């Protein structure tokens, strides 16, 4: 009995945690650049930012169980699929603002305004400079060919980035072709999916694989790492943007939205506007190697060095709506 009463009390107390001049942000992003930006926001507006970090899916699950009693104001996470899922789960509320419409292109945000993109990353082919000529690479679909047998390294299908890539392929080619593509690529993999994107690059550098599929910013992280071996890895590989003659390379966003339970809607919108403002966008380019939401506005040298590219213009909310289909196709293809 005492247990229930105490927990009731604690629960009520938890509900009172956010006062007027504070924002509770549930964020999956763990880059140092974020701390810099949050501090800058507090300096400019006086609103304190409390960050709860967690793994993206667990944050969403927690928001769902907390329901309307949740203390969270803003959810920041990576991948449009997740943002879509958060919207479907009812934990984000639609917001509109002129600044947000100015800062964020339409394809990079939810049509109803439940979430807005903040940064962009492309999922590209990273290849060994020694063993692969750029002319051998064309499209994602090409990787299904038998000539690539035992030469590809990709991470697990549990990872949302792969799911979004497959979602974009489903959108472009249909589910049946997507299934045969996934099956063939899995057969061409040098090993069962394991490790992070960076581990795939390391496999390429070590000679185990010739081509890896990974996100652009990881290359930036590798090239600027304090660890000498990582910098060596970055030197041995190169970036290739696929499907340039077709729909363009697959891109994704990290972004955020205002939670349904937020009691500080105005401040939360202010926060999102701040993160999508040009100044903040430049910080992303410099510090976390991510493209700004308006890719052309990029100022970072490193990103420039990878070359300009054509991006897939499909509305990113499709990455969310086709997400569960993508996961099921991965399951059927045996891609762990």
């Amino acid at each position, binding site marked *: 009995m005492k247990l229930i009463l105490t927990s009731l009390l*604690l629960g009520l107390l938890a509900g009172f945690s956010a006062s007027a001049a504070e924002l509770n942000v549930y964020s999956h992003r763990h880059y140092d650049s974020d701390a810099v930006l949050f501090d800058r926001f507090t300096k400019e507006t006086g609103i304190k930012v409390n960050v709860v*970090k967690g793994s993206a899916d667990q944050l969403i699950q927690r928001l769902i169980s907390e329901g309307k*009693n949740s203390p969270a104001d803003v959810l920041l996470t990576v991948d449009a699929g997740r943002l879509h899922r958060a919207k479907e789960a009812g934990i984000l509320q639609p917001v509109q603002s002129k600044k947000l419409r100015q800062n964020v292109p339409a394809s990079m945000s939810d049509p109803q305004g439940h979430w807005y993109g903040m940064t962009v990353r492309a999922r590209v082919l990273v290849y060994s400079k020694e063993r692969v000529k750029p002319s051998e690479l064309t499209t994602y679909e090409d990787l299904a060919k038998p000539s690539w047998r035992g030469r590809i390294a990709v991470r697990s299908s549990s990872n949302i980035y792969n*799911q979004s890539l497959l979602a974009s392929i489903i959108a472009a080619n249909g589910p049946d072709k997507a299934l045969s593509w996934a099956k063939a690529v899995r057969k061409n993999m040098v090993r069962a*999916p394991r490790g*992070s994107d960076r581990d795939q690059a390391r496999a390429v550098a070590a000679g185990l694989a010739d081509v890896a599929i990974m996100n652009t910013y990881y290359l930036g992280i590798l090239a600027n790492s304090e660890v000498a071996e990582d910098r060596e890895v970055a030197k041995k590989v190169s970036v290739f943007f696929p499907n340039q003659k077709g729909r363009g390379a697959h891109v994704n966003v990290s972004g955020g939205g205002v939670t349904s339970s937020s009691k500080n809607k105005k401040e939360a919108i202010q926060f999102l506007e701040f993160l999508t403002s040009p100044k903040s966008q430049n910080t992303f380019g410099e510090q976390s190697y991510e493209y700004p939401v308006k890719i052309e506005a990029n100022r970072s040298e490193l990103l420039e060095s990878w070359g300009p590219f054509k991006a897939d213009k499909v509305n990113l909310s499709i990455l969310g709506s086709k997400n*569960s289909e993508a996961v099921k196709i991965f399951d059927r293809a045996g891609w762990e």
Partner: protein
Amino acid sequence: MISLLSSPKTLFRNLGREFRFKLNVWTLSALVLGLLVFIPMAEVLWQLTDPAENWEHLKETVLGRYLKDSLILVAGTVFLSVAAGVSCAWLVTCCEFPGRKLFEWALVLPLAVPTFIAAYAYFDLLDMLTPLLIWVRINVGPDEMIFLSDFLVYPVTALVMASVLYPYVYLLARASFSRQGGQMIEAAQTLGYNPKSIFFRVALPLARPSIVAGASLVIMETLNDYGAVKHFGLSTFTIGIFRTWFALNDMAGALRLAAMLMLFILFLLFLERILRSGAKFDEVKNAIRPFRRYRLSVGGSILAILCCLLPLAFGFIVPLSRLCLWAGATYEKILDSTFVNLVTNSLSLAACSSVLIVAFATFLAFVGRYYRSAGVHASNRLAILGYSVPGAVVAMGILLVAGQLNVTFDVLLTGSILTLILAYLIRFLAVAWQPIDSGMEKNCDRLNEASKSLKSSAISSLVKINLPLIRSSMWAAALLVFVDTMKELPLTLILRPTNFETLSTRTFDLTSQAQIPESSVPAICIILVVVFPVIWLNRKMEARR
């Protein structure tokens, strides 16, 4: 308990007796509390009756893989753990060789290393095989290389897990050998058996119940693991649960997998009961006379030292050295003011949990024994099932219940430390209950009857008789819970409150951001905090012999 099921007539008679004569405040409270602890797990099991939308899909595509990977990994880990644990226990108990005394207690040290930290310490073990794989591709063919690369994951993962899980088998086998060692071995000696035959034909069969118990602990810990399996890329049931829940957003499907896993483990426990059932002779009560150990030859001694050194090196020395090296390079970055919070969070969480869980276990065990209530015995057995359930499943059960409470009573229960501690209660009650209950059985049952006959109250018996006599069991229970909560990962990951981090969650977070060297700092803290209770508990077990 078995008697409760012997025939319907006796069942009804016992039930009737239970209700008429044994219902009072104490037994009722114990029953309710025990059942409350069981409810989250019951909710998970109940999911089996709900149709899950994706179940057909899961069955056709991934269920087979989850089964296959789980079974292979479990088989490999158990095999290695039993081989290492039993051979070392035998050598250390029954043979004499230089360093024996050191190995006797040191072989327990890997218990201080959680499985996920072991995996991070060996994170590049598979990568080290890359040259081999490249050689195979060049000289044999890409298909063979792919096969080899897929195959190698199993033994490597099993090796890493077994290197820190073998102490479960080692401890139990050691206790068993030293209990029967004297009498049986001397008898066999006089009959002319040589050491090898004695080992295989006398000691091993007699130690079978302990070995089975140790193996089942290894199985449960293997199935519970999340960090190590994720790192090496195997698809066990726990991975499947997480994936179905988060990636497919199918809570129902995940719960179904969890329920299947629970059923599988219950089946294993049932098997274990059967395999152990010939075990009355395992509990030899008389004091053990020391017997003369076999003096090993020089060659034999070298082999023995190697045999003991290998698990110790794999499970403790190598991981700890690597972690220390990394920590030395990265500690300045990690040891900031928030780190102190981490340590105090972990310590206070573990300490509070220990106190609560030991009190709970003592109450349940006492009421069951004092009133000899079959009902309380049954509810106790249900309540301690939580240990066999992976932490992820317990967390899901709690979230289920909390979600329902949230909807009905509009109360936010998740995200508080209390919920986390309650989850620990469900998961670790068995750990405290075992030593306390067996301590009571050994020391207090008869005295409780005397106390009842002297018309003394239950409280009086509990406070004046039981508690003083089981003090050492309670300490052991508290330390065991402390160690387990410090090492816990999956449950804490899911249920931790806002901005509340522990050493283990920080370790995991750092590694999931690919900062493996930096993760060594909190990892080493865990090991350091846990190693002392482990050594102390080990000494206590030896002293009892």
